[in-house]
């Protein structure tokens, strides 16, 4: 208690130098929390969007299906049992049939994935209603990214070629009836949405699907010949990418933290050298050397407490403001990013994040303060009093 009181007294007494150190450290602190908060916010948003647009409350897959291996699609289709049909009728499941095809926009050749989905589904946020406007089988819906890569818009016609379940080539011209906007690239890129029964007919796969997306009201149960994939499985790769992004940011944070810590270390070394007489006086007043090491360590470490406070002073209003307006991600719109990314990211600061950041900064500041302070325990009090040490 005494040490803490003394530490703050001394720190505040040192004035400008203290505040310079504290300011740099508070930058490291705020940046650390901000960056991680941004990534966490992005992650939460991505998970939420991906769930809403693509994964639902988990999916049942055909056993062979592997979303990262397009070659498995050919064999990944299976009939839907009556049990499944009744869940679909209750809107607890939505079946999706997936097929591969080649599109020929403007005479180019481009591999695409065809997805058949029920236009009246309500489980996914996909605006499939657009497909129910007509009974004509030649209508399709695509996302904005796909529209850009195909250089197509609503009303344009596109020739696609595919092979049915027997491998026989077939080709057809489809009309783009709707282009939807979506933050989740994986439901947009390279994909063309058709009505489920249209794709089933095209492929010769009546009453078949590749996967079933579960809705909120679905009570979990198993279906024969279908494998359940839960949220964690479906979002695992996204989590990994986001973690990697987090790791990338640590370099800048670490650099800033290291600069701040070097400044503290330097201040400590200098302060112990310049305050020998004071140290001698403390000893004369009856402080033990270990108490002194403690005082100086706490004093250096207390930079981090001040930094946290200072950081809070400008960080909290800044964070609140950012959370109100969001971080504009408009500049990423034209970019090829494989993660769901909204127009704006709203950072999310968890208690855990803030606690960990504080602990990290306090501990590291304390360590760099302790290292030079150890020198005190080797000082001869008489020399210290005379200011004779080098």
């Amino acid at each position, binding site marked *: 208690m005494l040490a803490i009181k003394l530490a703050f007294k001394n720190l505040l007494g040192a004035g400008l130098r203290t505040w310079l150190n504290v300011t740099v450290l508070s930058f490291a602190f705020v940046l650390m929390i901000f960056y991680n908060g941004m990534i966490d916010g992005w992650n939460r948003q991505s998970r939420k969007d991906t769930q809403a647009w693509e994964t639902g409350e988990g999916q049942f897959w055909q056993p062979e299906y592997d979303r990262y291996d397009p070659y498995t699609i050919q064999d990944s289709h299976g009939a839907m049992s009556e049990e499944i049909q009744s869940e679909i009728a209750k809107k607890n499941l939505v079946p999706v049939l997936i097929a591969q095809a080649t599109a*020929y926009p403007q*005479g180019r*050749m481009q591999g695409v994935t065809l997805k058949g989905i029920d236009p009246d589904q309500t489980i996914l946020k996909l605006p499939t209603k657009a497909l129910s406007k007509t009974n004509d089988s030649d209508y399709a819906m695509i996302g904005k990214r796909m529209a850009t890569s195909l250089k197509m818009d609503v009303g344009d016609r596109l020739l696609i070629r595919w092979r*049915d379940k027997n491998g026989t*080539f*077939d080709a057809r011209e489809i009309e783009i009836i709707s282009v939807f906007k979506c933050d989740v690239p994986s439901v947009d890129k390279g994909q063309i949405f058709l009505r489920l029964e249209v794709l089933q007919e095209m492929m010769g796969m009546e009453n078949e699907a590749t996967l079933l997306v579960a809705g909120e009201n679905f009570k979990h149960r198993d279906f024969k010949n279908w494998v359940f994939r839960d949220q964690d499985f479906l979002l695992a790769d996204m989590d990994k990418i986001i973690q990697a992004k987090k790791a990338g940011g640590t370099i800048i944070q670490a650099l800033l933290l290291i600069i701040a810590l070097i400044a503290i270390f330097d201040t400590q070394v200098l302060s112990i050298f310049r305050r020998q007489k004071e140290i001698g006086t403390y000893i004369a007043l009856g402080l033990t050397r270990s108490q002194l090491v403690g005082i100086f360590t706490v004093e250096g470490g207390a930079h981090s407490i001040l930094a946290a406070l200072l950081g809070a002073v400008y960080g909290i209003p800044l964070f609140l403001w950012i959370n109100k307006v969001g971080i504009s991600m408009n500049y990423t719109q034209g970019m090829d990013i494989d993660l769901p990314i909204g127009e704006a990211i709203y950072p999310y600061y968890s208690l855990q994040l803030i606690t960990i950041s504080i602990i990290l900064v306090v501990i590291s500041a304390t360590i760099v303060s302790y290292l030079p302070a150890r020198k005190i325990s080797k000082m001869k009090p008489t020399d210290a009093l005379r200011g004779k040490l080098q």
Partner: protein
Amino acid sequence: MKFLITTTLLLCTITDSFAQDAKTILDKVDKNMFSITKIIESDMVIYGRRNTRTVTSKGYSEGTDKSFTEYLAPEREKGTKMLKLEDRLWIYSPSTDRTIQLSGHMLRQSVMGSDLSYEDMMEDRKLTEMYDAKVIGEEVIDGRNTWILELTAIVDDAAYHGRKIWIDTQRYIPLQEELFAKSGQLLKKTVLTDVVKIEGRWYPRKVNYKDMLKDGKGTDFIIKDIQFDAKIPEYIFSKAALKQ
């Protein structure tokens, strides 16, 4: 090798009794073009959007079951070898010193970026087993009179639901072929030209193969040298030959 397969694709014998005319015609074609063995040195010219690539290869074949191809140029492909025995296909790549067997989806990939897939080369079922054929008319192509044969699939798993073949009425060689989707959409077209007499047979020296849905000039196969019924040692058609 592509040249071999593409041409042999067109030369399968037809035994369908309902299409006597068509069968007779195709029989004659077969007789004209068939040989036990062939050794062909050819260029494959791939017309891309920006550039044109030429791949040179030397192929050995025996009937429709066995063939062996070695690529000679360009440098990047040099030493790559391919072996087909009935319905199996192996590729040896010198850069990795590995032999892999292509199967399933890999067969749908394009051969060296051309308009032709491995699968196109693998199809060796007799056309008559898969299609109902009939003569639907005559046409003059490049000053030659031809019959037009129309083939319609009678099995489920034919890659192309329909085909049209134009055959020279005097020389009994195919000059043109079109492949159709189930919907009737024209998918691919083959044009055979530069017909010359080699060792007493009429033979097209140039074949153009084109994906009709895509822009571009397609892929040309040009024969530089061909030998019929030459002796080909048996070891050529073995996996051991791939690594040599």
